[in-house]
């Protein structure tokens, strides 16, 4: 919110530098985001008096002036093309090396051979218009009035010597959304008196009630509605002082009564509206919910179709304003408007917000209403407006008004104690200090020993309980007085991770040991991601974001595969030739669509591996390392996925149940993505694996007798898998504790369609040692079983 320093000084004496004021406001909760010096663009520009004007010898439109610029030089020669000047005129002079509005730099030079040591300026070149300085809009050089001394800095002369503070106001302090609201805080901060607003006016012999009737049909959405009639309007220009203030806050002057409503909005934070009463059909104002399909065209000529969710101000026939947001074009004030009805109301903030959002229509007024306007301010702002009507001599003020109030809101009264406030803060703020602070903030305080009865100012609708009072105290007393203590009174509690959280940390460790770096990818993906993996149908299962940033981030993922592929592809494209990534994150599984209960968020592991040195088995290593860490055993069977290589894809099983998939990116998909290194992708239902995990330590005594190792070379048909052979080896002899495939050979020596598989088999003795001839016997038994069950033979 913009607060001009000069305006602020109308209500409170600010006798400290603006930077210090900003710092004080910051420390009490009003962050000054920017301090703008209004004349910041204007430099080395001073008042000059034209001493002589002679025509340029080589030009028929240029003139040569001599200027008295006081201490900057009493005879400065400047060439100008303007002709609205005479000798003795006082004008703004941009000296050599000066800068003007828009960053324009002025340097001395020669114009058609005549030296010119600067420039005479127009209002526009100083960045001002008629709202800043009378005559600023004149086409030509700005002629200064009054008697500023030559050499005086031009900025104070034309009203540019001012600061505008841009203040961020938190949502709980709508009362600070105005210049006067900030002035109240500043007065309390500086310990200075706050000058009251002039609210008085002289009523004339005209009556609101004779002109109009006001009915509030929706008091829930309009807790207070004040209507006051002003007749015999004139179209006198708004005085400069008011125009200048509007301009400082970025508003342009429109006409006097409209300017008054804008001025009151800025000064007090109360939005107002003025209706041309001649346009009100049936001399009625009805505040009601819009009818379904009813239409309004607002002042900015946009048409809206309304519903009963929207509050409107109507005459006997039609809506004439979108309550709290914008007036209707049909009752706009014009130059010849004879009389107006001022509206000063409190509209329920949530409804204004909803309507503004739903219709996409915003205004300064709706911005205030959304934050909240208090009924007290509504009551006095109308008087302020009428005072200004009188001051500006705009018209005759009715002696009566409509003031329809749903209920009278009483100021909040908080009964508390000094000790309760201090117990929350943790420090001892003296009682007298508490009273001083609250009083400075316009709270009224009565006290009896420890007890305090605090009545909030009527405009402070945010005050509810003693913590609010504590906050008022500490923000003025100073947060820097809060001394850190270490949970002085708290009970001891056992902290730390749960077993499940520890297990997950271990899972991550196991993967990192295998060289996998942890990735974090977005939880939302695109329908295109599913299509790319040729599982477009699966997108139907995904929970849709109603208001996504874009289609690319519109679905809550049901699989990590697209995210893993995306990460791998991005890396490869950036020239990262090799990499291993994992992510342990949730997928989101709706129980039904549309969702009527919380979906399942299932912790899932995704891996992506790429690079020339990688193959299916290095990728499989990630899952095996995890299995070892979590104390589970996975089985793998050949499987197919539309996005994986049909010959290099496995389903991962745990206890016979599928828990994951692993494979090489399908070659045609790799080609489509222009990925030339092999990419392996895997996904594991971590939640299911964790549920089966046995991460405890189970100690087994070392064998008393030495283990016996035998190598076993087998000739097999190509279709026989390692897992099948291993299973037979294990089940054929109870002493087998380890089976490891260490070589596979294909070639002429074994014949077409055959392969040789070499296993190392470990026998672990139990009650007695295993003699070499025992081991020979086991091997014979194993070979026999392999032959019978799988058709293998020993080589």
């Amino acid at each position: 919110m913009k607060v001009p320093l000069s305006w602020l000084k109308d209500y409170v004496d600010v006798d400290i530098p603006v930077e210090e004021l900003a710092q004080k406001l910051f420390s009490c909760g009003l962050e000054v985001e920017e301090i703008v010096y209004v004349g910041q663009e204007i430099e080395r520009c001073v008042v000059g008096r034209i001493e002589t004007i002679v025509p340029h010898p080589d030009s028929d439109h240029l003139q040569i002036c001599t200027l008295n610029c006081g201490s900057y030089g009493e005879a400065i020669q400047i060439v100008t093309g303007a002709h609205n000047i005479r000798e003795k005129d006082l004008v703004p002079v941009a000296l050599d090396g000066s800068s003007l509005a828009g960053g324009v730099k002025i340097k001395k030079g020669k114009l058609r051979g005549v030296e010119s040591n600067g420039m005479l300026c127009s209002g526009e070149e100083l960045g001002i218009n008629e709202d800043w300085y009378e005559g600023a809009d004149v086409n030509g050089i700005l002629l200064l009035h009054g008697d500023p001394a030559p050499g005086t800095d031009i900025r104070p002369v034309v009203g540019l010597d001012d600061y505008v503070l841009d203040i961020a106001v938190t949502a709980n302090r709508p009362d600070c959304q105005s210049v006067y609201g900030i002035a109240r805080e500043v007065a309390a901060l500086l310990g200075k008196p706050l000058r009251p607003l002039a609210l008085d006016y002289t009523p004339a012999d005209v009556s609101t009630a004779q002109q109009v009737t006001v009915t509030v049909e929706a008091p829930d959405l309009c807790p207070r509605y004040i209507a006051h009639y002003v007749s015999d309007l004139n179209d006198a220009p708004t005085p400069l002082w008011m125009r200048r203030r509007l301009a400082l806050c970025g508003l342009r002057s429109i006409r006097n009564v409209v300017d008054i409503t804008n001025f009151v909005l800025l000064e007090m934070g109360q939005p107002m509206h003025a209706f041309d009463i001649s346009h009100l059909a049936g001399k009625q104002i009805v505040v009601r919910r819009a009818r379904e399909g009813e239409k309004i065209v607002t002042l900015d000529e946009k048409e809206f179709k309304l519903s009963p969710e929207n509050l409107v101000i109507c005459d006997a026939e039609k809506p004439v304003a979108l309550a709290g947001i914008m007036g209707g074009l049909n009752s706009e004030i014009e130059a010849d408007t004879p009389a107006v009805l001022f509206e000063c109301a409190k509209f329920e903030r949530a409804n204004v917000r909803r309507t503004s959002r739903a219709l996409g229509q915003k205004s300064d007024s709706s911005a205030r209403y959304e934050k909240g306007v208090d009924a007290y301010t509504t009551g006095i702002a109308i008087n302020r407006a009428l005072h200004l009507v009188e001051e500006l001599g705009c018209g005759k003020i009715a002696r009566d008004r409509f003031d329809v109030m749903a209920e009278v809101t009483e100021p909040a009264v908080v009964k508390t104690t000094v000790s309760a406030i201090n117990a929350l803060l943790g420090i001892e703020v003296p009682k007298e200090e508490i009273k001083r602070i609250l009083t400075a903030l316009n709270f009224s305080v009565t006290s009896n020993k420890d007890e305090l009865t605090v009545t909030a100012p009527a405009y402070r609708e945010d005050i509810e309980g003693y913590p609010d009072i504590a906050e008022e105290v500490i923000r003025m007393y100073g947060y820097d007085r809060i001394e850190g203590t270490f949970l002085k009174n708290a009970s001891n509690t056992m902290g730390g991770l749960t077993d499940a959280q520890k297990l997950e940390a271990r899972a991550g460790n196991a993967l990192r040991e295998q060289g996998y770096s942890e990735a974090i990818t977005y939880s939302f993906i695109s329908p295109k991601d599913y299509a790319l993996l040729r599982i477009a149908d699966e997108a139907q299962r995904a929970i849709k974001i109603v208001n996504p940033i874009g289609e690319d981030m519109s679905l809550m993922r049901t699989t990590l595969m697209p995210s893993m592929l995306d990460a791998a592809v991005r890396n490869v494209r950036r020239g990262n030739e090799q990499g291993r990534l994992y992510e342990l994150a949730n997928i989101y599984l709706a129980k039904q669509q549309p969702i009527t209960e919380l979906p399942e968020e299932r912790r899932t592991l995704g891996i992506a591996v790429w690079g020339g040195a990688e193959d299916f088995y290095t990728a499989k290593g990630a899952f095996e390392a995890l299995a070892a860490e979590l104390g589970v055993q996975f089985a793998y069977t050949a499987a197919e996925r539309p996005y994986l290589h049909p010959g290099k894809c496995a389903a991962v099983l745990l206890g016979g149940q599928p828990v994951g998939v692993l494979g090489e990116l399908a070659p045609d998909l790799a080609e489509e993505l222009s990925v030339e290194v092999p990419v392996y992708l895997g996904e594991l239902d971590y939640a299911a694996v964790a549920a089966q995990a046995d991460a405890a330590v189970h100690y087994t005594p070392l064998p008393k007798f030495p283990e016996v190792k035998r190598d076993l070379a087998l000739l097999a048909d190509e279709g026989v898998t390692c897992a099948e052979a291993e299973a037979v080896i294990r089940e054929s002899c109870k002493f087998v504790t380890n089976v490891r495939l260490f070589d596979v050979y294909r070639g002429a020596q074994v014949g077409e369609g055959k392969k040789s598989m070499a296993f190392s088999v470990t026998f672990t003795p139990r009650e007695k040692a295993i003699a070499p001839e025992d081991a020979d016997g086991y091997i014979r038994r194993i070979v026999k079983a392999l032959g019978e069950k799988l058709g293998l033979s020993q080589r």
Partner: protein
Amino acid sequence: MKQKTQAIREEIEQRLAAGECATSKELIELKMEYLGKGGKISALSKGMRDVPAEERPEAGRLLGELRAWAEEQFDAREKELKRRELAAKVAGERIDVTMPAKFHAGGSVHPVTLVRRELEEIFSGMGFNIFEGPEIERDYYNFQALNIPADHPARDMQDTFFVGGEYLLRSQTSSGQIRVMEKQAPPIKVLSPGRVYRSDSDATHSPMFHQMEGLVVDKGITLCDLKGILDEFARRMFTAETKTRFRPSYFPFTEPSVEVDLSCKNCGGKGCRICKGTGWIEVLGAGMVNRRVLENCGIDPDVYTGFAFGIGLERIAMIKYGIGDIRLLFENDVRFLRQFKD
């Protein structure tokens, strides 16, 4: 006999001294020449037959002495030769120790996880547990129970993603506060970390990011306790010199509410580009738990007080590691990720 043995002794001494055997092979040949079956000392033994009986014991002793002495000489020379040969071999085995190592590089932890883990360590040491609430939440937990009714202006502070009906992507881990307080009676000390979502995307905002909510509810908890806890956090997360600053703010679920700034670690508080000249960096929001929030969870606010704080993990990671753009955290470029070690 004495003369003969003496002669052989001298002969051996001479030949060894002359360096006739520079290699093990030559030494063995020489040894055989004396101690072998047909060697000179063996020949001498065979000559014992011709020695008169009364001289034999003396001759035998001399012969034995000679044999023992010779063996000792050859053994010593053999050891010396082996030592020299090994030394020569080792001398030829010099490698270039600057050649690349052979090792298997471990993976890295995502910087956000590093920060999260560090926070969990700091706070679990203070008796905090860790609770992870759902990411897809009901409006009630994300807003209403936190004293943010429908159409409250505070909802503007967070542009929320909706997934239909009353369900949304949680915009803050504060939702976890409510779920904990509903289930657990005070004393409560809990952290609630996790993913949160807001419709915002630029160099400092990501539509998905991570927060960690901290909540303490017990008897006699004060604003000073909040300050003490956060001071400790600041020192441990950054440096022992890091200071915190409270300034007033507003969150509907805390009262009083504060914005917490840390002294800028880059300039030590003097003011620089990173802290925009202020010497302070805004890192988190906090405050004393609003009475209404306690009431919503069935906790008597006249008996218990508490504080809550919410930390943006990406923001901490960006400050701590000097990461300039939040999007880097989600691109998962391995050159980026590999820099963050356990």
